[in-house]
């Protein structure tokens, strides 16, 4: 570990940017605020690049410790940053994509009431995200973890007095409600994360001399030679599963994915940056970061990969029928995050993180393209009211198409390499708890790939191809292409979506650079003997997945070209299935009736109105009434007549005399 003194500038530049935007922003022109924010994130990217080269040349991780944050109970926590190969990938992706999206936002948000607020939040987000990926211990990571949640909350509810528009045109959920939902669901995940931290502290603290038990390096060293003696596998599995609860919240996996589709209430650049490229991948990063725990626990691996696979398929089916362009992309994100969890769950960390990287490029591109479409369509998001946009927005169309092909997994686009690597790893994965897990997950992933190709090309077909259905919405106006600040990022991302795949070639073709780069930073499963698959099989699987993707594309094109009547007929043939999918399996409704409403009504009806008001306060006021009653009874003695009092005095005196005499006679 090499100590350097500049890592803190990666988060600090955006923080400074956020403060400047907040303070100076209201007095500056929108473009100037945007430029300021972009430059700050760009500076952060530059520092990341510098650090990347230092790691590359020195072959060791960098570390900056600013100060000791707190020390108590034997536990010591630093505010420190770690820049190893894994954080390097994340930092480059996050700051790089952020810079592009900041640039894009200048044009997007120019006509808003308060662009400075937007850029301030956005910079604050980059700051938090940088803390999350650079923190050298779990608590600094947790600061970032909560910080990105906060920024997500603020940005989803950026137009805090507005509503989402349902495809039918009616009012949907309020933006501020969507933000709150995101924050609260994330908090449920954080509950797991916190408990995992507690369990790590109480388990490992006795084994660490200087109390820095939450440092990744210290934990990793402890776990280097397997599980330390005196600690059961059950505890490690519990830690892994609790951490994964946190990951399901942040990375929108089953059963906590429900906030992400509603997070589309935020401005589109926000969806691109936070809810596609960066924040939602934090869970994947975290699992990779804690790889030294996960490789020990087959159960945890199974759960992570299983949940990932289930989510990948589940979200893809919902994505098939959504009408809102951003909703389709949101479910696609949930599904792709599932693929990443398949990868990191099976300890194929480079595969998972590589998919994270390529996904950041093509999904950011898809969202930005969608933003460009929405911008051009004057805030219309219903794809059934688009069509034929290819003619009006050529650059948007071509870049969008590149991203779509990439996500569908067609060679030689980036998505092919990353997704295929995950499926290949799944096929070869061996889990001792459930030996067939790898094949099952592979099959699920392959099905998901089919659906992905289908719904993505459905999206392209309905948006860009076919007849123009937008005239009634636009009232004669024409959709228009966006300004260069918006199309330049599209182009850059399109290049990356096309070319990034070559960083991680299948090993039958060439060196997997990405895998070699990440190797020092993540733990690896010990190789399993007698489980080698030949190159022939790998070729076969590759061709199979290409064929599957091609099938998906072809059927989507067949279904949706030229307004073929087939989709309508399908809808009519399976109305129940269609409705269930369109209503997202009624999961939101289920949570609402099973959890939220009972909780609120029990709290209001029983705890507050009955227990607090009647039982506790009833007892208190009852006591008061009892005292009052006694007083009422006793005051009858107070006749006001001197004689009564005199009689009582005499009686008292007599009683006293009598008592004394009794005592005396006893004594004698």
């Amino acid at each position, binding site marked *: 570990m090499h100590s350097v003194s500049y890592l803190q500038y990666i988060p600090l530049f955006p923080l400074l940017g956020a403060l400047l935007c907040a303070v100076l922003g209201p007095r500056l022109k929108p473009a100037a605020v945007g430029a300021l924010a972009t430059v700050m994130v760009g500076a952060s990217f530059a520092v990341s690049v510098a650090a990347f080269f230092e790691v590359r040349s020195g072959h060791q991780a960098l570390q900056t410790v600013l100060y000791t944050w707190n020390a108590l109970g034997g536990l010591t926590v630093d505010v420190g940053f770690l820049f190893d190969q894994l954080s390097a990938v994340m930092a480059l992706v996050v700051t790089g994509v952020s810079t592009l999206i900041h640039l894009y936002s200048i044009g997007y948000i120019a006509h808003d009431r308060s662009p400075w607020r937007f850029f301030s939040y956005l910079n604050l987000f980059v700051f938090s995200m940088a803390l999350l990926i650079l923190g050298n211990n779990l*608590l600094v990571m*947790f600061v970032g973890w909560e910080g990105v949640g906060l920024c997500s909350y603020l940005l989803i509810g950026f137009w805090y007095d507005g509503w989402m528009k349902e495809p039918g045109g009616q009012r949907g959920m309020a933006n501020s409600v969507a933000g709150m939902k995101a924050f*609260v669901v994330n908090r449920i995940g954080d509950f797991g994360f916190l408990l995992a931290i*507690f369990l790590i*502290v109480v388990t490992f603290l006795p084994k660490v001399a200087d109390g820095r038990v939450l440092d990744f390096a210290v934990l990793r060293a402890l776990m280097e030679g397997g599980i330390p003696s005196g600690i059961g596998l059950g505890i490690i599995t519990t830690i892994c599963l609790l951490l994964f609860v946190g990951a399901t919240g942040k990375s929108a996996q089953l059963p906590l994915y429900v906030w992400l589709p509603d997070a589309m209430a935020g401005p589109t650049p926000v969806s691109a940056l936070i809810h596609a490229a960066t924040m939602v991948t934090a869970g994947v990063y975290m699992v990779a970061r804690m790889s030294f725990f996960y490789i020990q626990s087959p159960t945890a691996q199974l759960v992570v990969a299983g949940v990932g696979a289930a989510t990948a398929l589940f979200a893809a089916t919902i994505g098939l029928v959504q009408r809102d362009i951003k909703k389709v992309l949101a479910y696609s994100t949930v599904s792709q995050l599932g693929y990443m969890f398949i990868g990191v769950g099976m300890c194929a960390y480079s595969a998972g993180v590589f998919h994270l990287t390529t996904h950041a490029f093509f999904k950011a591109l898809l969202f930005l393209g969608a933003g460009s479409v929405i911008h051009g369509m004057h805030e219309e998001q219903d794809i059934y009211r688009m069509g034929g946009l290819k003619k009006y927005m050529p650059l948007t169309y071509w870049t969008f198409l590149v991203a779509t092909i990439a996500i569908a997994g067609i060679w030689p686009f980036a998505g092919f390499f990353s997704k295929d690597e995950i499926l290949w790893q799944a096929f070869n994965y061996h889990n001792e708890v459930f030996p067939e897990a790898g094949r099952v997950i592979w099959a699920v992933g392959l099905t998901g790939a089919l659906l992905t190709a289908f719904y993505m090309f459905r999206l392209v077909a309905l948006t860009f191809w076919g007849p123009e259905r937008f005239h009634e919405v636009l009232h004669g106006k024409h959709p228009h292409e966006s300004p260069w600040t918006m199309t330049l990022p599209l182009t850059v991302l399109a290049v990356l979506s096309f070319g990034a795949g070559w960083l991680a070639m299948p090993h039958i073709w060439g060196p997997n650079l990405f895998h070699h780069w990440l190797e020092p930073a993540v733990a690896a499963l010990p190789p399993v003997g007698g489980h080698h698959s030949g190159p022939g099989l790998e070729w076969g699987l590759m061709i199979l997945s290409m064929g599957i993707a091609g099938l998906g594309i072809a059927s989507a094109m067949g279904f949706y070209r030229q307004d073929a009547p087939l989709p309508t007929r399908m809808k009519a043939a399976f109305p129940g299935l269609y409705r269930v999918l369109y209503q997202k399996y009624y999961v939101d409704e289920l949570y609402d009736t099973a959890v939220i409403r009972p909780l609120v009504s029990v*709290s209001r009806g029983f705890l507050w109105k009955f227990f607090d008001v009647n039982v506790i306060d009833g007892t208190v006021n009852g006591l008061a009434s009892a005292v009052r009653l006694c007083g009422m009874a006793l005051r009858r003695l107070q006749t006001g007549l001197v004689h009564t009092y005199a009689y009582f005095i005499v009686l008292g005196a007599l009683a006293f005399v009598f008592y004394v005499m009794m005592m005396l006679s006893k004594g004698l």
Partner: protein
Amino acid sequence: MNYLPSILSTVVFLPLLGTVLVVALPSREKNLLRAVALLTSLATFAASLNLWFAFDPAASGFQAVERFWWLWVFGVQVDYHLGVDGISLLLVLLTTFITPVVILSSWHAIEDKVKGYHACFLVLETAMLGTFLALDMVLFYIFWEAMLLPMYFIIGVWGGPRRLYATIKFVLFTMAGSVLMLAALIWLAISFKQFTGNPTLTFNLLEFYATDFLRPGTAQSLMFLAFTLAFAIKVPMFPFHTWLPDAHVEAPTAGSVILAGVLLKMGTYGLLRFAIPLFPHALHQFAPAICILALVGIVYGALVAMVQPDLKKLVAYSSVSHLGFVVLGLFVLNDFGLRGAIYQMLNHGLSTGLLFLAVGVVYERRHTRQIEDFGGLARVMPMFAVGFMIATLSSIGLPGLNGFWGEFPILLGAFAARPVFGIIAATGVILGAVYMLWMFRRVMFGPLTRPENEVLRDLSPREIAVFVPMIVVMFWMGLFPKPFFDVMEKSVAEVLARHEQRLGQAEVPRLEIQAVLDSLAPARKN
């Protein structure tokens, strides 16, 4: 830096001096009265800063001790005895910091009987500081009861429509506890006298600390319960909390702030100063039960807060939940829990204080506290929205702000003691986000639906001067908690070490509740 001579007495009685000045001034000079009160409280804060800079965290025991005979009659010896340690130091600073803030906050809110109002606040400050610094138990009791009077008037004279009910409820609840405490206190002193054979009856807390004079048994348990009940009512712990929402709703803004900010800490401070160190065996027996009450309070307070239609009631119930965390931290009896609890006392003072100030800001403008009367205020009051948001986030324990370093160690301590406690308490973190953000959304976000809300002014410079210091301290305590934790280290370690040592010397019978609890929520074995 060294302690200034008689610094503790100076800190305690400076506000009283200010009271004399306030009383001597003519009633019609309202601004002069306010200025004198503000300057006095600022001077007190400045004086208390000497304590912070002179305090030696490495030294054990109490510092800057002042002691002389005060009452010595009929074989009863009551001393004037003040001292500061790492626990009281922080609470003294909290008190001296919040008092000028609240005096500034009520500059325009109070136009009626201004003289009496400020006199009450200054007397209250003296009483609060005395309570934190007294080392003689009778002196403590006197300051403790002296707090009640000004607060009684603050709620009863300058309060809302149901102020009489609220203020009497507040006083009676507190009194009910404190008479029990008085009885236990005398009993304790007599036990000490019998054990040592002293000719006089003394109430010196330091001697009580130094001597292991109580045997395990019913007497100790009864004394412990009496003390605990007195403080539990003040905290307030579930199920003794129902005075709090009423008192908060009826109190003027400044009263609510000082009530939530400092007065409630008297309860937790008392638990830590008396109930925990003096009765080791009873503590050992009853701690799990008290932890369970605290857990119930955390969840119950949060759930009830969630459905309150009144802003102040919501914040009041959230206090029940937050102070549940504090009590839990105190009674899990480890370093994480205790230091986290002390920090959480400060955090709660700041964040809830700021929340009440924020409620006061909108109340002054709209004369309503019903959540449904608001909505969309972020558009007309952007600066207020920022301040209110930071208070909210601090209250829900967002890391980077102060709240985190209170909640996190407490939860960790609870988890280290009994994992189930940690798990249940951690649900409070989720629920905290639910009720606070829901409230914030309904007040600040959404469209502006009511025309009367469209003309609301944003924060005035005076209100900014109230908000900014609080927010600065919140960030400071969130980013640099270590100095604060270092200050308490020695004092907390002494409490824990003494407890371990006393407990080790005697066989303590197990209560049945402990056996039940151990089967349901096993303690963690090391």
